[in-house]
């Protein structure tokens, strides 16, 4: 694990969800129709997963304790037991809401547009923030007399820009979207990098412009610069189980 490549990796994998697959039949059907973005559906589902863990606290705790006693299970089997259990309580929460009719809630197909709009806007804001932060970092580094690794940061900028561009494109297709504001934010982020210029004694270093030039080079041939990963392969957490009951009981004290 390279501790220094934080932003690039995060930008390429988005937010971490509790479950990486759809377990609610209605959402599975929506995904199968091809009309809906699976990322948005997984995000919508996650609220039910987390609510399920809260509403089914006692059941979850009993499950967890029971699982800890099943020492014959492999770590991988243990992992899938947890996924199945979470899927079960997630469906229960969703079904209860659907059957009992939480008055404020419309069918999930109708809520999708609102959710997608929020999802893409939030993604755009995160990536715009990353561009701003990168520009600020380069400026601070140069002012401190540290030469930043422009190629590395260009890769991060490229990932943020392409992700943001993707989100804005999807946003534009939705009714009542705020895509113009998001586009403006992206331009501001790029401009912030462009202006990250600091004069060193006798010679100005147009670091921002240099970085954007590298971004252009990356854009022409991304595979040469960036190792793309299959999200479904990288996003799943390590299946090894570490539930507390199997933890080392003689852990040293906090220091």
């Amino acid at each position: 694990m390279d501790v220094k490549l934080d932003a690039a990796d995060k930008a390429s994998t988005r937010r971490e969800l509790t479950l990486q697959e759809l377990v609610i039949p209605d959402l599975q059907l929506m995904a199968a129709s091809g009309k809906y973005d699976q990322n948005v559906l997984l995000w919508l589902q996650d609220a039910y997963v987390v609510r399920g863990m809260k509403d089914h606290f006692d059941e979850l705790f009993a499950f967890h304790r029971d699982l800890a006693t099943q020492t014959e299970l492999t770590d991988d089997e243990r992992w899938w037991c947890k996924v199945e259990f979470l899927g079960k309580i997630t469906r229960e929460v969703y079904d209860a809401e659907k059957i009992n009719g939480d008055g404020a809630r419309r069918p999930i197909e109708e809520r999708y547009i609102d959710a997608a709009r929020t999802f893409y806007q939030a993604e755009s804001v995160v990536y715009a923030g990353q561009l701003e932060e990168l520009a600020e970092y380069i400026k601070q580094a140069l002012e401190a007399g540290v030469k930043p690794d422009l190629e590395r940061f260009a890769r991060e900028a490229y990932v943020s820009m392409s992700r943001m561009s993707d989100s804005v494109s999807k946003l534009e297709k939705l009714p009542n979207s705020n895509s113009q504001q998001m586009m403006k934010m992206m331009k501001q982020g790029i401009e912030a990098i462009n202006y990250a210029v600091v004069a060193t004694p006798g010679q100005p270093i147009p670091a921002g412009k240099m970085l954007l030039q590298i971004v252009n080079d990356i854009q022409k041939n991304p595979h040469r610069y960036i190792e793309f990963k299959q999200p479904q392969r990288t996003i799943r957490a390590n299946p090894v189980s570490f539930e507390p009951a199997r933890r080392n009981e003689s852990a040293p004290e906090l220091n």
Partner: protein
Amino acid sequence: MTASQSLAKMAVKAKASAFGNYIDPERMLADLPNMVLVELDVPEYERNGLGGMVAKTLRYEFVDLNQHGCEAMSIGAERSRAHMIYTDMKPVVVGTLKDVEARAPDVAKFLMERRYGPEMVAVGVLRAASMGLGVATADEQARLVAFLNKYHRRATWLETHPMDVRMANMEAMIGEGAAFDWARIFPTVETGEL
């Protein structure tokens, strides 16, 4: 108004009924500026020797609740769950990256020279202050770097194992809280020391 200022005031419009994070009705949402760094009380971070969670805010306007709220995206980890921020997490806004770096320019410079990225520099400056560390001696530098690498490693694991974390938190709620066995999780680099 600069881009940073306009980002700070922004809030993404959302409906709680069409939102991908569960909003606990029994807790009070915290309204904070958008895209600023905050420190939060998050039990799994504290319990596993990392202190408070350092995170970046993402602000929302929940039009159907008629209130604002924020998600916290953990920084210093490779990925992040989105944690809803509640007032009981005692959020402390520490400002932008620039604000944080200005607190200890020598520490920030030291970390930049060692090629730490923006997020790790921010975590490093904040933790150096809370641990009473500078970068004047090789020993202090080594301690800071060791802590940062540990923070990154463990925070990444915590953020990518929400089920395990949830179960550990349940045990903590009934008084049986314990740290994860880091020596088992990362056998080649961890001794398990917190």
